[in-house]
């Protein structure tokens, strides 16, 4: 894959890169750092990419590694149970957004912040990015059974939280 095509792919994947990095790192500036670093690494190693069809998956894998490295390096593991911070972040980001419906779903985003990194990442891949179980298992280098199990536990936790806190049925 040539650099121009790859550059286009990266730009198109901006939202996706943000969501994935945000699933691991809570701080936006950390997300910036991780994504920038991942993109730079990807450009440097672009010649090692054998199959162009997997370019996005490959970039995602690099990004995950970089996010974990950032998390470890900065010792900025966020308290996922920090409810106020999550809500504040959410409101801050969505205060000026154009789609009105988003304000109705901050409860779900907040509930997501209660999941651990692994569960949140699986949810992000599955629901936001539309990856299949098989693709997620390859991305995270875990078995498909593990992905299913993480998804199931994550769903269960979300359901329970939303039922208890927000009266979902």
């Amino acid at each position: 894959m040539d650099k121009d095509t790859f550059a286009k792919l990266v730009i198109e994947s901006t939202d996706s890169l943000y969501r994935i990095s945000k699933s691991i790192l809570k701080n936006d500036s950390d997300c910036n750092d991780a994504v920038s670093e991942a993109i730079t690494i990807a450009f440097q190693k672009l010649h090692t990419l054998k199959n162009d069809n997997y370019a996005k998956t490959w970039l995602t894998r690099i990004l995950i590694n970089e996010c974990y490295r950032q998390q470890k390096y900065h010792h900025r593991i966020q308290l996922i149970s920090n409810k106020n911070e999550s809500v504040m972040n959410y409101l801050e980001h969505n205060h000026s957004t154009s789609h009105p419906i988003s304000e109705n779903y901050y409860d779900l985003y907040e509930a997501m912040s209660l999941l651990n990194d692994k569960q949140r990442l699986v949810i992000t891949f599955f629901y936001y990015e539309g990856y299949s179980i098989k693709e997620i298992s390859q991305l995270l280098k875990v078995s498909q059974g593990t992905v299913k199990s993480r998804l199931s536990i994550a769903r269960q936790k979300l359901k329970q939280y939303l039922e208890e806190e927000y009266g979902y049925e």
Partner: protein
Amino acid sequence: MNNKKTFVNHEEIMDQFVFSFPETPELFKQAVQKTVEKNLYQKQPISRSDNDYTSTTDNTHNRTWKTLKVVTASLCILIIGVVVYSAESAFSYDQFSIDDRQVEKSFTSETTTEKTSDKIISIPEQTIEIDSRTTARVINSTISPSGIILNIQFITTSDYSNKSSRNYNSTKYYVEDSNGNRKLLIGYPGDAARSVKLGVNWSADIDDFDTDSEYIKMIPYTIPGNSITSNYIPGTEIMDEEHSFIIRLK
């Protein structure tokens, strides 16, 4: 707050998730754009305007950095190679390159040279109660630079026809010095006494054995099965710590 939301339908969940996530911040988008451009144009032979020196600077910097890394890596490999070679040489000299016997000999001769002035020291005569029926009498035993010579007389009231009684007189022993080093003893049984010698047959190992040891511990052992008809397999001995006994050397 809408209390009638559901969390059952898959599509519903999908929609909720999609709308729940914060929008990508503008700053983030700009950062991605910048990074991509920087990487895209960094090494490309593009026509630069007069005031654009970024690419050249970066490339020069990268080349210098790469050269530096290669030189450093080469130096590291060279140093590691020299260290490993030296270590291997020293190791093989001590352990493998020279015949074990030669090493032992040189050690022994050094020890002998050091101890030629040493006198032969008699091991104090002593009587040791091994069990309720048997005592061991240590007589005419010596420690010399060439090793230890032990003469032990076993006095027993046991009836050797009774298999439950241990016959110390024909028992094989391990000997352990006060540092915990164990050696297999080669013994010469007699009618009334059993003499076990450390010295002549053990000259090769004498340097390993601590002749300055305060005491030695004699540990009987048996070989499983019939040692006469079956092949002896080293390491299968069964130590009889319970019937071990200690001989004072000084």
